[in-house]
């Protein structure tokens, strides 16, 4: 802890995790004086299965709720405006978002338009000031999460909204939805969370409140991700990973975007590849870069990755190498568990070079561009010689 640097931490998200967590939703709603939620979700098979479980969990509550199950990656502000008007007409008094980041991002923007009483939701922009509490928003996490669901950020139609009030009031991690037999989704979700957590945990501005979250989440993911992906750990392992994923969003709200996150996000924007997959390709390269820059505490990763016993046995000077080798093994194990056809680089993941050019262009526009560009090139698989000019050393 460096007392000279000011410490600030906010996490408005309550975590409900475990057996029959979904069944507590009616009670949680009534704690906010809400009785008629609008459930927002997507149309893919996993979302549909999750929705059936969620609706069953409301059994015996006597509640009636609205259901919008049409969120896609093309959902726009015009849809949000219609939803907003419907909420007002039908008196929906809370929002429950079921599913991954796209769904939750839409729910967050809908919540802004409702709570700020914006006359026309199509006029909302990233500049819209969000300075006060919004209506109750609850997120039900599924294996399709990216970790940003619990954060105070929403990306919608190319805009990035930021406000601590955007974070949901509650995240529910229920074993029935954390493990739906899809190891690949759990892997991507856990790796995306791990990427952001690792960056936060070594960052230059140490913060004991945030570190408590990142320490816990890294440890949960390190201990459980491989088993959860391979289907060995049952619902317990998947739930533990879900916990880590949910906490990663709380950490991200208190750090901001670093290199790995930016790489994952830009590739997702261009090619819709899960940020977890991208981050797993770049994580070690990025950490190597941080190692060469001042102030990053890579040694801090060793304890949550290795556990108490190994940590106590280690010499302080060996911890950076130890942490990197544990991470390398973890990523390799998880990728093995995902299956043989897991792409090793972006080329194998189906990113043609012309799209890669788009990725590189976007990265170059970032203040961290000089660092990001060579990293991205390596992720693609090979370095075309005409791109080598102008790289930082």
């Amino acid at each position: 802890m460096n007392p000279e640097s000011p410490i600030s931490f906010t996490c408005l998200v309550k975590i409900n995790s475990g057996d029959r967590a979904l069944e507590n939703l009616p009670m949680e709603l009534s704690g906010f004086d809400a009785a008629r939620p609008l459930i927002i979700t997507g149309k893919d098979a996993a979302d549909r299965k999750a929705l059936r479980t969620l609706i069953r969990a409301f059994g015996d509550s006597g509640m009636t709720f609205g259901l919008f199950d049409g969120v896609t990656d093309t959902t726009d502000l015009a849809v949000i405006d219609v939803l907003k008007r419907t909420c007002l007409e039908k008196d929906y008094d809370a929002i429950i978002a079921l599913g991954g980041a796209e769904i939750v991002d839409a729910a967050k923007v809908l919540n802004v338009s409702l709570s700020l009483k914006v006359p026309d939701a199509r006029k909302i922009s990233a500049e819209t000031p969000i300075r006060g509490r919004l209506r109750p928003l609850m997120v039900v996490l599924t294996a399709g999460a990216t970790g940003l669901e619990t954060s105070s950020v929403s990306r919608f139609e190319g805009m990035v909204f930021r406000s601590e009030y955007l974070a949901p009031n509650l995240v529910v991690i229920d074993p029935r939805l954390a493990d739906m037999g899809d190891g690949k989704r759990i892997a991507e979700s856990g790796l995306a969370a791990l990427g952001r957590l690792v960056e936060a945990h070594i960052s230059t501005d140490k913060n004991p409140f945030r570190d408590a979250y990142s320490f816990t989440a890294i440890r949960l993911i390190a201990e459980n991700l491989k088993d959860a992906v391979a289907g060995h750990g049952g619902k317990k392992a998947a739930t533990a990973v879900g916990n880590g994923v949910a906490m990663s969003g709380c950490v991200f709200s208190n750090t901001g975007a670093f290199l790995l996150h930016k790489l994952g996000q830009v590739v997702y924007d261009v090619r819709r590849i899960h940020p977890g997959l991208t981050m797993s390709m770049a994580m070690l390269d990025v950490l190597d870069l941080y190692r060469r820059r001042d102030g990053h505490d890579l040694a801090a990763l060793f304890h949550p990755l290795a556990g108490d016993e190994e940590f106590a046995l280690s010499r302080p000077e060996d911890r950076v190498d130890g942490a990197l080798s544990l991470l390398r093994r973890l990523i390799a194990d998880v990728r093995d568990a995902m299956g043989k056809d897991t792409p090793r680089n972006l080329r194998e993941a189906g990113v043609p070079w012309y799209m890669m050019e788009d990725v590189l262009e976007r990265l170059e526009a970032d203040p961290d561009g000089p660092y990001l560009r060579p990293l991205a090139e390596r992720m693609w698989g090979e370095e075309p010689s005409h791109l080598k000019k102008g790289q930082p050393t």
Partner: protein
Amino acid sequence: MIVPDYYEFCCRVKLLAGHDALERMADVLAERGIKKPLIVTDKGVAGAGLIDIVSKALSVSLNAHLVADTVPPDSDLRVVNELAAFYRDEGCDAVIAVGGGSVMDTAKGINIIVSENAADLMAFSGVGALKRPLKPMVAVPTTAGTGSEVTQVAVIKDHERHLKMAFGSYFLLPDMAVLDSRMTLTVPPFITAMTGMDAISHAMEAYYCLQKNPLSDAHSLAALSLLYRNLPVVTETPGDREARLEMAVGACLAGIAFSNSMVGMVHNLGHATGSVCGVPHGLCMAIFLPYGLEYNMHKRGDIMGELLLPLAGEAEYRETPREQRAKKVVSLVRRMNSKLNELTGGRHARCLREVVDRDGVPMVPREVLPEIARAALLDGASVYNPEEADYDDNVMVLEAAWEGEPLDRGKVKGG
């Protein structure tokens, strides 16, 4: 890492810490459109000059604020009502509580009345009676120990009707907790020592009692490494700003841990000893903590052993065989108590028979132990304690804690 079958965790409090955290608090209040906050405090805090520091910090960003320093040592409904009326009449728009538990409770009571337009506070007592966010409230603790800046409960006494009203709701969590080293610099060593042990007991009980969860665990461990290292430092050198800040952060981390995982026998017996004999809460915690560990060790030994790492560091953890670690934790707690006893010239009592009042009169005569044991059966913390404790068990622990002898663990009835 143990993930329980079900758990909940919530700390919706903006946490600010630093040597200038008060100035940053003022900035955040101004950003949030607050124009005229009411500072609620007691005469002791105001007399120590702390309100001057808060006022000065506020006046940089805000044009107006008011101060009310009439909070009694024990929260009182009459004062709550008076100050709520004052808040309304003066058109205030936020409460800043500067002080200890009673000040925080009073501020929460005021906030319920002014937010809900309540005529009778009683209507909002109990768990879950509040259904919506209250007006802004900031907590500025002036000791490093209670963790009340991050708790969702309040107790307000109605001395006229002899009633104690308890309130529990996440809406009672302050919007902001401000940990500024200047607020604890002048706390005398005796108080520093026992409030610090209060925080250590929060972190430890949260870690081994039944409601533990991964996040409360991480908060406990982080708290312990800060508290255990710094407590002797601030007791010996009260003016050490860095150590004071680390203590404040440690106590807050411990507060977050225990308000999400609850506490057990140490608090159980401590509350009872406090109510029967008037022994300060922190001192009770310091005395009972080794016994809480010993009493529950047959069920939670491995978990308690993990605490050795933040307390003693890697070398000692590595060199202590696994089955000895929990016992080592107990001996470190006892060693800390002895050290604090030495640093406070004997005022930090190590056992119940050493507790004396200002006139040197023993506060806990041996014959009241049965009464304390009975009172402890009425305390809710027992639900979260790993092992059952009936009247006889309580007497056994109290006897040992009175003498200052380690507990004969062979006599603990295992379940």
